[in-house]
């Protein structure tokens, strides 16, 4: 079980994407793991053949617990400890006592691989089923190819409850391991994770805040003109342009792009902009768009759409969760004009983006009406001072006045 975030110490194996005997390559998705934040795809750390899956779906195990055993291609005999992929990426190997996974029983391990017969289950349905204690094998899917949606789970739950009205087992989360308190739902676990991280941020990080209002006339006019030439799928939304500009600004002000580790600032060599995404069941994740500053604006737009849709489908990749160097939270779609955000430790800054609002605006001594956006930088005062944050925002403003260069 890899660590998928600085604050993660256990995860639930939701589903195997491979089965024993499959050949996998480094980077291939192997399993879906539910952390307390979201469901994430875990990739193989090596090339090889899957010899055994060591953890059954639904089991919650500590970080560092081996999930599967790989053998090098061509080897047919088990080579113990050959490669425990995916093992912890950035953590030391677990001490023997730390391994909480039950001893793998060779027979049943293979049976659940590949998921339920007949169709897929939406991540929301899966989560709901676990929270409500509904057995997914007994749910018939109404979606295409028998895919199970949330409503099917709710319907199944209604039926089950009728049949066993007094059974307390119905309300028990089925998938949590016995070591976890049974009443603790996945949703409240997610809240606890966010609570722990944000408490740490407010306890340890002396935040400072600087803010400015930026005229988006040039950007919106340029987007209106260029989007006419683009197919719907390729159209660019203002939020993507703000992301690209923020990445370029972060490159020019490297003191805001990196991590506070062991009482010192460690600059990140690349800008991997984290994007705060609200998942529909109330979870909040902030995965990274890798090398944001090096991507063209259409590439940033495509990456943003891809990232958000995968975040909502519970299909983020490990590296995306671990890598953000500076996070942007855009709550404009929620209608607010200003976001004064909390920094994600160990990052040292966070950019809050509000709604695009038409405001009276003085241009060349005359009053006009312009689309504007409120940008707020939260900075870690241990790493930088307000002046650095102010320069960052000034650069960001300048970049947004020349959208054709983004």
């Amino acid at each position, binding site marked *: 079980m890899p660590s998928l975030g600085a604050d993660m110490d256990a995860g639930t194996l939701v589903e195997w994407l491979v089965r024993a005997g499959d050949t996998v390559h480094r980077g291939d998705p192997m399993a879906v793991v539910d952390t307390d934040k979201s469901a994430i795809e875990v990739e193989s750390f090596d090339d090889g053949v899957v010899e055994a899956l060591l953890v059954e779906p639904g089991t919650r195990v500590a970080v560092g617990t081996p999930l599967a055993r790989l053998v090098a291609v061509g080897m047919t005999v088990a080579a113990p400890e050959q490669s425990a992929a995916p093992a912890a990426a950035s953590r030391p190997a677990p001490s023997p006592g730390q391994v909480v996974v039950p001893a793998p029983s060779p027979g049943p391990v293979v049976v659940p691989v590949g998921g339920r017969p007949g169709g897929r289950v*939406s991540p*929301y349905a899966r989560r709901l089923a676990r929270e409500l204690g509904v057995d997914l094998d007994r749910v018939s899917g109404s*979606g295409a190819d028998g895919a199970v*949606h*949330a*409503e099917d789970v709710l319907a199944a739950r209604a039926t089950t409850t009728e049949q066993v009205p007094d059974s307390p087992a119905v309300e028990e989360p089925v998938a949590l391991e016995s070591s976890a308190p049974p009443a603790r739902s996945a949703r409240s676990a997610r809240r606890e994770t966010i609570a722990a991280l944000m408490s740490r941020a407010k306890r340890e990080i002396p935040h400072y805040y600087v803010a400015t209002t930026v005229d988006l006339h040039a950007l919106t006019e340029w987007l*209106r003109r260029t*989007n*006419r030439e683009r197919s*719907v*799928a390729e*159209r660019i*939304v*203002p*939020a993507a342009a703000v992301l690209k500009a923020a990445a370029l600004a972060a490159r020019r002000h490297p003191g805001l792009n990196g991590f506070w580790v062991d009482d010192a600032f460690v600059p990140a060599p690349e800008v991997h902009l984290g994007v705060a995404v609200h998942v*529909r069941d109330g979870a909040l994740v902030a995965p990274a768009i890798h090398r944001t500053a090096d991507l063209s604006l259409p590439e940033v737009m495509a990456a*943003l*759409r891809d990232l*958000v*849709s995968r975040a909502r489908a519970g299909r983020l990749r490990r590296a995306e969760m671990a890598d953000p160097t500076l996070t942007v939270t855009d709550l*404009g*779609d929620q209608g607010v004009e200003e976001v004064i955000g909390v920094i994600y430790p160990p990052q040292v800054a966070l950019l809050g983006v509000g709604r695009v609002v038409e405001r009276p605006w003085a241009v060349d001594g005359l009053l006009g009406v312009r689309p504007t956006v409120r940008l707020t930088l939260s900075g870690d005062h241990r790493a930088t001072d307000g002046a650095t944050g102010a320069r960052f925002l000034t650069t960001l403003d300048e970049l947004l006045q020349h959208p054709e260069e983004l």
Partner: protein
Amino acid sequence: MTITREQARDVVERAVRRIVPDADVASVGDDADLRAAFELDSLDFLSFVELLATETGVRIDEDDYPELTTATGCTDLLVRRAG
């Protein structure tokens, strides 16, 4: 390709459900603000417009977005453009 109001309405409903699987379009009414009712952000809305355009072959520009606020508005536009 012409489409009936009923077909257009159906396209709208399916497009919403592709983005919000649990959405019950009928329950919010044809004149409700779709973005507000189903908490569609700008990326969701773009996907919604994309689905409307690909399902019907109708060209939809950003200038049309204000008309796409409600299910009725969407239906009107699709019927008019497809006809």
